[in-house]
């Protein structure tokens, strides 16, 4: 086991970070979510598909998890995790997690040709499960049935569906590919990864193969811990920079001891989140995933909440990006199992049983 970043991973990180710094600074993301401020619903176009094309095609992130013989890069989950750290740091509105992690991981056992198309970024897919589902409740929010190769029913809270060319729908242990279902984006807490309700009404579907949804969600939850780490890191770094700059009472507010101590404690939490994320990426066992999710979700949220508070009034304004991170952090606390769900799972995984 190594919990460190390899040289390859550091190179990958640099490429992604440089690209995002250039093309996706917080101000650009803010602009996207502001595109139609006076309507209740946001435009679909929160996703930056040009950026995604570069990320997927030039840097090649879309195919990281796809074996080389299927047209991908045959990289490890640890490499995908590094990409997620960077995307989390930027709350970048691209469908990496939904298409290149969740949907790709669902497809992998089937070795379907679609994998090649996803791997080079030509097409984008979404796994049609609710983002509130978890390895322990994989069908939460879903009520889809299959009848003669046609799907009917609804899945609420689906992330990435609005940007997907293909929808991958797990029903009763099988995975179906669908194009052209009804995807209605709902106003979402997380502005940079909106959720949608997907409705099937005797929709034509192609059976792709078998699908263990719980396993897919567990894999996703493990990697989500790296995205949460990235969110936490941005919040900590940005807050550190702010409190060093911002003066009140003729001192940088970062020289006030109460603030210093809170940031030291937060840093300790982030250090441990990094270890937990690395561990879950290199050892995606049920225990590692549950540990990483039950810790990192809370750390990302706490980091975002502290960032907002320590920014004072400016943190409460739409024009400062900290709210994008708060909303992402809160949404991922709920996504793929709450910290409490993951702790509850640990009770049996590590033999700390509840009251009888």
């Amino acid at each position, binding site marked *: 086991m190594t919990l460190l970043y390899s040289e390859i991973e550091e190179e990958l990180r640099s490429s992604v970070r440089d690209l995002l710094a250039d093309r996706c600074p917080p101000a650009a993301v803010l602009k996207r979510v502001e595109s139609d401020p006076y309507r209740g619903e946001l435009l679909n176009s929160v996703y930056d598909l040009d950026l995604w094309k570069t990320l997927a095609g030039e840097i090649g992130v879309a195919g990281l998890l796809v074996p080389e013989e299927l047209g991908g890069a045959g990289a490890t989950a640890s490499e995908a995790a590094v990409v997620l750290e960077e995307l989390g740091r930027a709350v970048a509105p691209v469908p990496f997690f939904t298409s290149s992690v969740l949907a790709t991981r669902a497809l992998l056992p089937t070795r379907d040709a679609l994998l090649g198309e996803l791997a080079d970024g030509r097409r984008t897919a979404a796994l049609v499960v609710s983002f509130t589902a978890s390895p322990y409740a994989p069908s939460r929010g879903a009520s889809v049935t299959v009848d003669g190769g046609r799907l009917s029913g609804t899945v609420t809270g689906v992330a990435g569906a609005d940007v997907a060319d293909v929808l991958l729908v797990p029903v009763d242990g099988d995975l179906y590919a669908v194009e052209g279902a009804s995807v209605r984006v709902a106003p979402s807490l*997380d502005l940079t990864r909106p959720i949608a309700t997907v409705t099937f009404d005797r929709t034509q579907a192609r059976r792709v193969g078998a699908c263990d949804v719980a396993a897919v969600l567990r894999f996703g939850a493990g990697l989500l811990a790296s995205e949460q780490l990235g969110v936490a890191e941005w919040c900590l770094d940005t807050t550190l920079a702010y409190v060093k700059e911002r003066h009140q009472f*003729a001192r940088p507010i970062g020289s006030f001891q*109460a603030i210093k101590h809170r940031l030291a404690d937060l840093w300790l939490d982030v250090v441990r989140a990094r270890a937990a994320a690395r561990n879950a990426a290199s050892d995606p066992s049920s225990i590692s995933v549950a540990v990483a999710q039950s810790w990192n979700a809370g750390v990302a949220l706490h980091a975002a909440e502290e960032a907002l508070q320590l920014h*004072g009034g400016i943190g*409460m*304004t*739409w024009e400062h990006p900290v709210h994008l991170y*708060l909303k992402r952090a809160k949404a991922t606390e709920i996504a793929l199992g709450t910290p409490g*769900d993951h702790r509850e799972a640990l009770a049996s995984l590590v033999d700390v049983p509840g009251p009888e």
Partner: protein
Amino acid sequence: MNEAEIKERVAAFLAEQDPAGDRLEFLRARFDAGLAWVWFPEGYGGLGAPRELQQVVERELADTPRQLHAGMLAIGLGMAAPTILTFGTEEQKRRFLRPLWTGEEVWCQLFSEPGAGSDLATLATRAVRDGDEWVVDGQKVWTSGAHHSRWAILVARTDPDVPKHRGLTYFICDMQAPGVEVRPLRQITGEAEFNEVFLTGVRLPDDLRLGAVGDGWRVAQTTLMNERVAIGGGPARRGGGMVAPVVEAWREHPELRTHDLHQRLLELWVETEVTRLSGARLREQLSAGQPGPEGSGMKLSFARLNQAVTGFELEFRRDLGYDDWAFRRSESVDFYGRGPGYRYLRAKGNSIEGGTSEILRNIVAERVLGLPSEPRVDKDVPWKDLPR
């Protein structure tokens, strides 16, 4: 003056003034009869009576016309009026207090600036004397109701060469003067409760100055003291307040319950209840004439609780949606009329607005617990030389 005498006054007033007549005329008459705020002096809408007798008047006049938009008058009634009463000239009191109270003229507050939040005294908006006028330039922020307001209370720097507390002057700002620009300030909830106010070459006659030149900090203390009094309170009923919608949802959705959430909800319920009891005890102390220092802490407790409870609610509901991101002005905080996502985001402001929790902890530590202050580096430095 006692309760019986007050009741007599009200009766005499009602004998002369028909509540069914013109609303504004009625309110003006009520002001002139000294029944606006009985603890104010005679001639300024009051009778010089003890403050607690006001509730007698309110009870007696419960069914008569009231000011429109009570919420929008909060800053005028709660902050501008006591300051004008304390520091205003005879002429200022006559000019401003009556339309302020009747609601004919709405007031807002131009204190905070982007660079001066917790450290208000470091504010940078300049007022430069030009004959009988002052020319004001600067930017204010977190101004609620600025777009409805006729007047504002304003603190500006008139002398940058002395330490920060000493170079301030307090003004009444004419919000219709040229150079006053009001822009809505969108918040993380999507809506705009507040405004930014840009002041560019705004000319205010010297008779809009409140208090002496250079005495603005002392005048502002009166305003802020009245702000602090207004904040606090809290639910009077067990199980009320922010935890109520959560408990309701909890009862309605057994399928969402987990042991983790259950234990945490019970903890929040207990904290809510002891905080409520603490507020109840505070009110008993006040009505027994034994005000204790406990009030200083109520806002801190409620900010923490509101944030914890609303965060819990979203997690319990596993709610990834949001009711409405539309950018609109809102006149007040509507915790219960909006969805849990709004409650969660809006509650984040509770530990910032009206004094951050950090500043309030300083205040409790120093004023209540008597702990020594930190070494000060800005006491004797001219404002213009302060690091910022």
